C-alpha cells in the first residue's frame, strides 16, 4: 500500500517559502489550462448546488439558523479555557483515556505507542483530516503497521498514493474509469463503468477487514463538554463499523472541536449536512461516550482520544481571526470558490484546501511560506456567504495579506504606492501623468516590463482612449 505524501512541509527558509509559492503558481497555471479537468469538477459540483439549495429551502429561516450555529461555536471557542477541561473530565468519567499532543510529532508518537501497547496487527481507519494534518499513515507504515482507509474516497486516494483533493470529497477529481483501472490493478477486479459496482467492490473488500482489525482509528467532528461525548459525522457507515468491531478505538481531534451543550448538535448537525453536502442530515451522526459499558453487547474494550493543539492556540491568540476556529469542516467554502474550482485541490499543497485552508494554513505552517494563498482570492465573498458558522473568511484573507506586508514588506510595492499617492494628490501631475500614459500604453505591450509580464501572459491591454475621463466629463457640460 502506498503512503500519503505531503506535497510541501513547513519550513521557514526564504528559499522554501519561494518554493511553495512557485509551486503554487506553476500548478495553478497547469490546472487552469486543463479545461477538461475544470469541466469535470464543475459538473461534479452541479448536483451539490441543486441539493444544497433544496435543503436550505426546508429551513424556515436559514440566516437565523446560521446565527445560532455561529453563536454556539463563538461561545465555545471563546470559553475553551473552561470547556476543554470540562469536556476532558466528563470524557474520562465515561471511561475514555485522553492523550494531549502539543504538535504533530507528539501526536504521531502517541498513536504509535498506543498501537504498540495494543499489540496491533491490523488497523482500520475512517476518514480523519486531523490524521492527514499530522501525516499519520506514513508514520504508521514506517513503523510496520498496515493501515486501510475505509472511507471510499480516502481508500481510492490511498491506492492512488495521493492526499485528498478536497477535505470532504477526497477523490472528486477522479473519473470512474480511472477508479475501475485502479481497483483492477490493486484488487484484481474486472473493469466496470458503474459507480454502484465500483462501490460494491470496495464494500466487499472492506467487510472482513473491519471484523479482523484490532484497532480502529477515527476523527471527531464535535466534543461535547457537558456530557463528555465525541460526535462523528459520516455517510457510509465505515466510522460506525470502525468504532464498533475492533477492540481498541483511537479518536484524534483538534482541541477547537469542543461545544458546550449536547443540544447544540440539534442545530450544528443539520447545518453541517446541508452546507457541506446538501443533505437534511448526514447518514450517520454518532455520539460515543467511552468504550463498551458493562451490560452492553459489543464495542471496544478501550477508547483513546488524542487531543491535538498543533498551532490551534496560535489562531486562538489572534482575536481578529479566532473565528476561523469555528470551522466545522463542511467544505461549503471550497464548493463555491471560483479559485478552488479553477486551480483544483492539489494546487494548494495543504491539508485543508480552499478559502478556509488559505486562512488557517499560514497559522499552522508559517505566514512567510503560505501567505501567497491569501493572494489567490478574488475577494468575491462567496466563501463568507456559504459559511454556516459565519466565519469572516474573505476578510481574513485580507488580514493575512496585511500581516504579511507588515512582517515582510515588499519594497517595490511600497515605492509604487508612495509614487501613486504623490501623483494622485496633485491634480496637475495626475493630468500630466494620464496624458503620458495614454500615449505610451501601446508601448508597454511591446516592452513587456517585468512587473506586467505575468499579467500580460493571459490578457490583452485595452486600447488607450483618445481623451481623459476628466476632459470628457467637462466637454459633456
Amino acid at each position: 500500500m502506498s503512503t500519503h505524501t505531503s506535497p510541501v512541509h513547513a519550513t521557514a527558509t526564504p528559499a522554501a517559502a519561494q518554493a511553495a509559492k512557485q509551486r503554487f503558481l506553476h500548478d495553478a497555471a497547469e490546472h487552469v489550462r486543463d479545461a477538461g479537468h475544470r469541466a469535470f469538477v464543475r459538473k461534479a459540483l452541479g448536483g451539490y448546488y441543486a441539493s444544497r439549495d433544496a435543503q436550505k429551502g426546508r429551513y424556515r429561516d436559514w440566516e437565523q439558523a446560521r446565527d445560532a450555529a455561529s453563536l454556539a461555536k463563538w461561545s465555545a471557542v471563546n470559553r475553551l479555557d473552561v470547556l476543554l477541561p470540562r469536556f476532558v473530565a466528563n470524557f474520562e468519567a465515561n471511561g475514555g483515556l485522553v492523550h494531549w499532543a502539543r504538535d504533530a510529532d507528539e501526536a504521531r508518537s502517541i498513536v504509535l505507542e498506543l498501537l504498540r501497547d495494543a499489540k496491533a496487527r491490523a488497523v482500520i481507519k475512517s476518514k480523519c483530516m486531523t490524521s492527514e494534518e499530522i501525516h499519520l499513515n506514513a508514520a504508521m507504515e514506517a513503523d510496520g503497521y498496515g493501515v486501510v482507509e475505509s472511507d471510499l474516497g480516502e481508500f481510492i486516494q490511498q491506492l492512488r498514493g495521493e492526499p485528498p483533493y478536497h477535505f470532504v470529497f477526497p477523490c472528486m477529481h477522479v473519473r470512474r474509469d480511472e477508479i475501475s483501472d485502479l481497483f483492477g490493478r490493486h484488487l484484481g477486479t474486472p473493469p466496470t463503468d458503474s459507480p454502484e459496482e465500483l462501490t460494491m467492490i470496495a464494500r466487499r473488500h472492506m467487510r472482513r477487514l473491519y471484523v479482523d482489525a484490532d484497532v480502529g482509528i477515527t476523527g471527531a467532528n464535535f466534543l461535547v463538554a457537558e456530557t463528555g461525548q465525541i460526535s462523528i459525522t459520516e455517510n457510509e457507515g465505515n466510522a460506525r463499523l470502525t468504532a464498533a468491531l475492533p477492540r481498541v478505538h483511537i479518536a484524534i481531534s483538534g482541541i477547537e472541536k469542543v461545544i458546550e451543550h449536547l443540544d447544540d448538535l440539534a442545530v450544528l448537525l443539520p447545518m453541517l449536512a446541508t452546507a457541506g453536502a446538501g443533505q437534511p442530515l448526514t447518514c450517520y451522526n454518532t455520539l460515543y461516550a467511552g468504550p463498551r459499558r458493562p451490560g452492553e453487547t459489543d464495542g471496544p474494550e478501550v477508547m483513546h482520544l488524542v487531543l491535538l493543539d498543533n498551532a490551534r492556540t496560535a489562531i486562538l491568540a489572534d482575536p481578529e481571526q479566532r473565528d476561523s476556529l469555528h470551522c466545522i469542516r463542511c467544505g461549503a467554502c471550497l464548493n463555491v470558490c471560483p479559485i478552488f474550482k479553477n486551480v483544483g485541490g492539489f494546487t494548494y499543497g495543504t491539508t485543508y484546501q480552499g478559502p478556509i485552508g488559505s486562512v488557517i494554513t499560514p497559522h499552522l505552517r508559517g505566514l512567510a511560506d503560505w501567505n501567497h494563498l491569501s493572494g489567490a482570492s478574488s475577494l468575491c465573498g462567496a466563501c463568507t456567504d456559504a459559511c454556516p458558522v459565519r466565519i469572516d473568511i474573505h476578510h481574513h484573507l485580507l488580514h493575512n495579506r496585511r500581516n504579511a506586508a507588515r512582517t515582510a514588506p515588499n519594497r517595490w510595492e511600497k515605492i509604487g504606492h508612495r509614487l501613486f499617492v504623490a501623483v494622485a494628490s496633485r491634480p496637475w501631475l495626475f493630468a500630466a501623468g494620464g496624458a503620458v500614459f495614454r500615449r505610451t500604453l501601446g508601448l508597454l505591450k511591446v516592452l513587456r516590463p517585468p512587473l506586467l509580464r505575468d499579467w500580460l501572459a493571459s490578457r490583452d491591454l485595452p486600447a488607450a482612449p483618445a481623451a481623459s475621463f476628466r476632459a470628457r466629463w467637462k466637454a459633456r457640460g
Partner: protein
Amino acid sequence: MTKTAPSDRNTAARETILARVREALRTPAPPPHLKSAASAPAATNGLPQLAVLPEEAARPWLPDGGDTPAARLGILTENLGKLRALVYPVPDMTAAADLVGTLARERDWRQVAWHDHPLVAALRHGIPCGTLEVGPAAFDKSALEACDAGITACEALVAQTGSILVSSATCGGRALSILPHVHVVVATLDQIVATLGDALHHVRERHAGRLPSMLSFITGPSRTGDIERILVLGAHGPKELVVILVG
C-alpha cells in the same frame, strides 16, 4: 476498566496546552457578525450565551418537525421516502410479524440477527429462516457479518430529518444496526418526536445520568457520493433500511 497512570509527558503537554489557551483568551474577540437583532448576544458574565436555550426547543427557523402527531407522522414518512428508506405502517404486532416473514421470503434471507427487546421478540415467530441473537453474553462478529438482516428497536424517530435514533443500550449494541446488509427497525407511533433537539432531550431523560456508550442518528440507508458525486446506496452500512411503524 484499566486506567494507565498519567505519564509525565501527558501531564506536561496538558499543562502547556491549557496555559496557551488561557493566555490566548486574555484578549477578547469581537462578537460574531449576526444578521438578526433577535439573536444578538445577551451578556452573561461578559460573554454571550447561545440565544436559543435548550428549553426553547422549538427553534422556529429550523426545518419543521410538525406540531401534532399526525403532522409528525406525515413529515417523517415523507422524509424517509426521500431518503429511500422503506416505510411500512402496520396496525399491530401480528401484522408486523407477517411483514417481516414476507420480507425474509422475498429477499431469500438465510440468517437474521436480533436482540432481546419486547418489540423485536414479537416478530420472532414470523421469521422463516435461521436466527442469531446478539447480547452481552454472546457476540460473534463473524457470525453477525454473515447475517442478511439485523432487526432492532430504536430510541426515537425524528420527523424533522427522517432519522432513527438508536443506542448501544437498548438497540442491540453497536454493530447490529450497521453490519448486516439490511437494517429493520420496529417502532411504535408514540416514539416519533418532532426535532433532533426533542430526540436528544428524550434520550437524556430516559438514561438519566448515564448515557449509553453509543447514540446514533441513522438517516436513510448507508450512502456515498465519492465517485463523481453520484449517489450510491449501501457503501459500508446497510443497503436497505426498513422502518416498520406499528399502531
